[in-house]
């Protein structure tokens, strides 16, 4: 019988690896996509994650992992081209459209995604989600930011403190 795992991609089929979420769901993805994660890259290079083994990810639940992998699969081809210096403008525009759509999500999902991106060290995703949160804050007054992020209404003390801050840091409010 042929070996279950060929290891190198030389005979046509791309190498697959299995990732196991904290709630024990198994995800099979191409090694190239999973390798966008700096954390996983070394394990995969060492031949881990193949066959029946799978790499357990105790900090990432299945809903988040499936979202993370959606990102990785989309970005893997460009990353394989070394940041795709020869990518067409159309390809780049398509990735940008995907990214914008991708982070158009609820705050709780965004939170899990940020944590997962950092745990797995996926550089592109880390900047994408950080930028998303920055965009939620940008150009707003403190009250508007509080509302956007879902803070409870300020107590009278908090309100007084905000007023004092506006006096002290006038340059931030011009």
């Amino acid at each position, binding site marked *: 019988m042929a070996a279950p795992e060929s290891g190198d991609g030389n005979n046509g089929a791309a190498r697959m690896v299995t990732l196991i979420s904290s709630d024990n769901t198994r995800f099979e993805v191409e090694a190239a996509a999973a390798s966008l994660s700096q954390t996983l890259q070394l394990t995969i290079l060492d031949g881990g994650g193949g066959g029946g083994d799978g790499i357990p990810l105790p900090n990432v639940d299945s809903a988040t992992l499936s979202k993370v992998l959606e990102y990785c699969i989309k970005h893997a081809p460009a990353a394989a081209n070394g940041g795709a210096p020869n990518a067409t403008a159309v390809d780049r525009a398509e990735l940008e459209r995907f990214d914008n759509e991708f982070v158009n999500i*609820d*705050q*709780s999902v*965004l*939170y899990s995604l*940020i*944590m997962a991106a*950092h745990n797995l060290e996926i550089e592109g995703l*880390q900047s994408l989600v*950080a*930028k998303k*949160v*920055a965009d*939620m*804050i*940008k*150009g*707003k*007054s*403190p009250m508007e*930011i*509080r509302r956007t*992020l*879902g*803070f409870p209404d300020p107590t009278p003390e*908090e309100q007084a*403190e*905000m007023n004092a*801050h*506006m006096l002290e*840091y006038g*340059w*931030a*409010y*011009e």
Partner: protein
Amino acid sequence: MGMLTRAKKRRLEEEENRIDRISSLPDAILGEIVSLLPTKDGGRTQVLSTRWRHIWRFAPLNIDLLHCPRRQRVRFDQISGILSSHKGPGHWLRSPALDKLQVLEFDLICSTNTRLLASAQRFFSTLRIASFGGCAFPVGKAALALCFPVLEQLSLSSVRISECLMHALLAGCPVLQSLLLDNNDGYLRLRIMSPTIRSIGVRLRCTTLEVYQLIIEDAPCLERLLLSGLVGKMYISVISAPRLHFLGQLSKEACPRIQFSTVTFEGSHIISLTMVVRSVKALALSYMDDLSVDAVIDFMKCFPCIEKLNVEMGRRIAGCRKYQDLIGSLDIGVKKIVMTNYIGCRTDVCFAKFFVLHARLLESMTLEFQKPGKTSSVLIEKQRRLLQIENRASRSARFYFVSCNYLCSGPNCIVCAQQVHDLSADPFVRLHHWT
């Protein structure tokens, strides 16, 4: 019972979404997010809650001065207030994680805050590469001990430093190899005495009317002296630099006088010559009003061992006099010539033809036309005829006609950090993207 209606479920979800989760992210991630914000937005996050109070102060600080919408811009007079409320850099500079720091890039964007520079002082003893920009070195009581025992590369860019401190600084770098002085202020005279220095690059402050003096008094290892031809005048005097290999770009405007112990050039005219400088192998000349064959013959007499000559053609004023009698017994040993800003007019042809007919060891001559697009074959044929390439002195010489696709081949490109600090590369090659 127990079944949620669709509306109820949606309401619960909405409430769930409204709960702030972002604030529970770790400090490092919140800091990263805040550092992406424009300065003012970042400053405002301090007031959100106690959780956010310290994030901005310890995150990398952006100061938006120019390239942002007016609404986000910070005024110059606000900078020092922002710096003093933002504890970040001073705080990190004290962090033990930075002990034994080897590479420091320090740029204050023209702020007058000298405290930050003082907090960087503790790294001086371990730095191998340092770059200071946009800051002033304090004098008097606040003066820093400028002692860099292992520093090899130093760049000072838009720095204000007195002549006295500048000399103290250089004396405090006993193993310095390369030095870039770009657009600094505060000194008019600089003496270099360094047993280790191999490369010096100088770019003058563009607005000055004063004449700078650069005296290479004793630099036994100096290989490259790179000068920019920007506005600003400099007298250069080389007393001892026996290994100087790369020199340029010399231009009449920027270096009206350059003196090699006993040889003095005034503009491009030699005014006294009692010895020759054999070490110089690569010379770059630029923008000389009166750069004529005569002037280059003078340079060749002074630097008889030049192998590579790089000439940026200037305004075409010089005539095409007879030069035969001037050559005398001079042997033109140059092997590679690059002429940029070439237009192929009579003066240009006369200049280039001189080397075609007299450089016996010539290996290649590259003529770079100052116009985009491919050089037409008709033009090339005409030039080959005018230059009398058939009668060339060196039978093996090759001729290249290329076009320059960008406008910045000017002298301001010659002094940049990489050319000064990368001692393995030919500093004059980078001027030409086609090589």
